[in-house]
């Protein structure tokens, strides 16, 4: 791999941010036992701990909440960030290690063979989604998954256009590696990521006719945000990326010198023979970039309406750190805004958070996750296939009459006392019909069998799970259950003596949609 220009230009920044991270980690690790006195901050309450764990992960258990109760904000944030990982815990599907089908072979294939290849890749995309959902459920570092999901939404790329699912996996590895790492490095890597080069058409961009798609989105969506560049900047920047392509035989990045435009370009009023990496550095130097990303993170982690002064404070930390994302997250997760009462329960769970969170919260352990991947897709979030390069709009847009009914149906079927398995299957069928995308012949039946197997393999006992709120230990009663399951008190506290009924009432409460 070619060394990155941005690192070469900023060796000190990178070294410093790495060192800071290490030192902080060490200091915190050493300081933990005595830190209660070292930092005179109010210790986290049960509700604070729940808030932190649910915003930074998926549906924390009572035990996890209790473990964080009493830590200071800084300790708690550090504890969470110490889990950060660069690779997944679980093994990816075996085919991720196989090379892609070379273009020369693809050319010689019959129409039927090509269609079979497409179907194979669509099938593999499902493998990949299941693998990721599994990872979200078993990871020791939920924040890594949340951030990987955030960056997937940020650098939105879809299997439906890229087609080679292996390349989608490779991009995912990149997103995961830098999830809490250095954004500048990630941006440079993303610009030469084969899936991205295909998705935004840069693979075909040549000197005579530069394709503007990547140049536009890298500014509008990845760094500066709308309004901070001109159409002229886009055209000039597109020239800098001509020849950034892929080798169609191996699916790897390839710089095609012959179609690259080495000429002079004018970007943001600066005139030089800019190359792609230099163009990216121009973007990283602009203060709007850190602000844009901080604002986006705010909407995902703190509240729907960013506080601009606070965004600017956090963005300055981010930029000064040389785009150390862990450092930004540490600052965000210990900020007053993060814990402000008015920002609690103000965010709507994404479908992935809703589905994975439900499985995790209630310790449902399906052997096959495909039905749940499908459920999330039908609720509006099909990972590896965002709707467009802008990603999922999120927020209130997650909830409309179709998706809200889908969510209610999902929990209704899971928590219904009778015919749970059969009803769940029917619900998934209905959702599949509703999605309006009938699977190719054969797949429907196969999927049906998968769903059946998954449901039969689902070892789960609602009464057993719920009885812990009626055993005289820890959080107790409907109110104790609500503290764990909901981000705010329910509209009506469930009555009666059966803990399983409390669960059914609380997951039907509108507050269950919030985080």
């Amino acid at each position, binding site marked *: 791999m070619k060394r990155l220009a941005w690192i070469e230009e900023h060796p000190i920044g990178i070294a410093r941010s790495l060192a800071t991270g290490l030192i902080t980690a060490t200091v915190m690790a050493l300081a933990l036992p005595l830190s209660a006195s070292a930092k005179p901050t109010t210790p986290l309450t049960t509700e604070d701990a729940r808030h932190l764990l649910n915003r930074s992960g998926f549906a924390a258990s009572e035990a996890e909440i209790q473990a964080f109760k009493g830590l200071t904000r800084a300790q708690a944030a550090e504890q969470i960030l110490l889990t950060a990982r660069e690779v997944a815990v679980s093994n990816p599907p075996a085919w991720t290690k196989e090379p892609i089908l070379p273009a020369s072979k693809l050319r010689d294939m019959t129409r039927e063979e090509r269609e079979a290849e497409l179907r194979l890749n669509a099938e593999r995309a499902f493998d990949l989604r299941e693998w990721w959902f599994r990872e979200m459920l078993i990871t020791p570092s939920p924040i890594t998954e949340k951030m990987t999901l955030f960056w997937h939404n940020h650098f939105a790329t879809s299997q439906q256009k890229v087609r080679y699912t292996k390349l989608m996996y490779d991009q995912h590895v990149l997103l995961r590696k830098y999830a809490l790492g250095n954004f500048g490095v990630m941006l440079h890597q993303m610009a030469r990521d084969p899936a991205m080069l295909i998705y935004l*058409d840069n693979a*075909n961009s*040549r000197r*005579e*006719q530069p*394709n*503007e*798609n990547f140049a*536009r989105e890298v500014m*509008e969506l990845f760094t500066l945000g*709308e309004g901070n560049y001109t*159409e002229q900047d886009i*055209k000039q920047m597109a020239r800098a990326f001509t020849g950034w392509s892929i080798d169609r035989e191996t699916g790897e990045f390839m710089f095609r010198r012959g179609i690259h435009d080495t000429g002079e370009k004018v970007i943001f009023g600066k005139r030089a023979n800019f190359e792609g990496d230099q163009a990216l550095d121009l973007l990283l130097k602009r203060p709007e970039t850190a602000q844009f990303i901080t604002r986006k993170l705010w909407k995902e982690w703190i509240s*729907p309406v960013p506080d601009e002064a606070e965004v600017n404070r956090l963005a300055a930390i981010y930029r000064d750190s040389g785009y150390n994302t862990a450092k930004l997250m540490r600052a965000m997760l210990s900020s007053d805004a993060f814990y402000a009462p*008015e920002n609690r*329960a*103000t*965010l*709507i769970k994404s479908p992935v958070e809703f589905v994975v969170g439900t499985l995790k919260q209630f310790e449902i352990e399906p052997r096959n996750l495909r039905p749940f991947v499908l459920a999330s897709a039908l609720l*509006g979030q099909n990972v590896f296939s965002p*709707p*467009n*390069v*802008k990603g999922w*709009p999120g927020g*209130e*847009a997650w*909830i*409309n*009459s*179709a*998706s*809200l*009914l*889908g969510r*209610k*149906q999902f929990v*209704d079927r899971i928590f*219904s*006392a*009778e*015919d749970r398995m059969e*009803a769940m299957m*029917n619900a998934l069928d*209905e959702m599949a*019909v*509703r*999605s*309006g*995308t009938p699977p190719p012949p054969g797949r429907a039946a196969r999927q049906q069998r998968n769903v059946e197997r998954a449901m039969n393999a689902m070892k789960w006992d609602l009464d057993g799970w719920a009885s812990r709120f009626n055993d005289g230990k820890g959080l107790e009663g409907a109110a104790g259950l609500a503290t764990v399951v909901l981000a*705010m008190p329910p*509209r009506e506290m469930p009555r009666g003596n059966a803990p399983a*009924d409390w669960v*059914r*009432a609380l997951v*039907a409460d*509108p*507050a269950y*949609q*919030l985080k």
Partner: protein
Amino acid sequence: MKTRHTKPLQQLGVASSSASTLANQKRRQFLRNFGGAALALGSGLPLFATTDGVAWAQAPAPAAGAAIDTPYNNLLVLIELKGANDGLNTVVPFRDPAYRSLRPRVSLEHDSLIALSEREALHPSLKPLMSMWEANELAIVQGLGYPNPNLSHFRSIEIWDTASRSEEYLDAGWLARTFAQFPAPRGFAADGAVIGSNDMGPLSGQGARTIALADTAQFLRTAKLAQAGEDRRNRALRHILGVESEIVHAANKLNTNYQFKTVFPSNNFGNQVRTAAQLVASRAGIGVIRLSLSGFDTHANQLGTHANLLRDLADGVTALKSALQELGRWDRSLVVTYAEFGRRPKENQSNGTDHGTANVHFALGGRVKGGIYGEPPRLNQLDGNGNLPFAVDFRSLYSTIISDWWGQDATKILNGRFGTLPILRA
């Protein structure tokens, strides 16, 4: 815990299979009565919904739709061509030599085109629309766009959806603003219905009661899980409960009783059209229905993809007309296509086309005055980006809908006066 309703749904299945031995017409009647009743009972809706359902099914179709007198009995069906349809290969300036010189590989074969005039010809996939063209029910508006065009999908569709100026950011969609200023009767099931899409487009933001759905029967089955209510603790919660209330209100008024003779295409867009037709058949009151057809962002290998998309569009619109005619609503329906922008006249290196500006769109309906409006593409006057100048502000199209179709004042909604297009018969 609420009651579960699996059993009544099974009964519905039983009812339809035991009815299959009856003569066709009787069977249909039976399904309308008992299917409707079973469904309504099964869905736990208030009893009046059941009797209403039966009453609607039995009553002869009134010619002018719902009984409530409102301008919104004039139905608007919007079709978003997502990704930006290539107007130049939809309504082709086939005699303009620049068309072929700009697109040596991405132009359509002369012989395949369907000529409409000395200058314009239709893409061959749009052949099904010719019957509407010949009946004078198809208006073609060329050169729609706006000043200082934005070439980003998201920003430009936002401009179209909110009817803003290029540099202006508005929160609510133009139809949400229309319903906010001129509300539809409370008795309407909803102001608008968005079918088969998760974004509310011109109905987004405060102002309109909108339901989103993909399939009517499925919507009704699950609507029982929603509960109307209010909770003002925060904005997200208010939003969720607002959506629940809209669901309950709409579900009380919709049904799937009507058995269409029209055959709907068995693809995604065809399913959307079927759902739209079912909403209209419910006679529950809906002012706007928005459908969408995706995949028009043809940057590479455009010709085959585009031909398939236009075929889906033409087949869907044909089925929609047929269904609305069956319901006696075609004369009170206006179908309009739109998209974020057009595509660049000059082809790119990938046998596709990049983001453009001005575009052509269709308006169809029983009261449409067929013909070609606006201005043909000026391929010899491209701007610095190689894009077309616009001739007709897209807000004129909206102005036509608001003032000529609904008889309301468009000035405030559109923040200015825009001329109307003479595309409607009195």
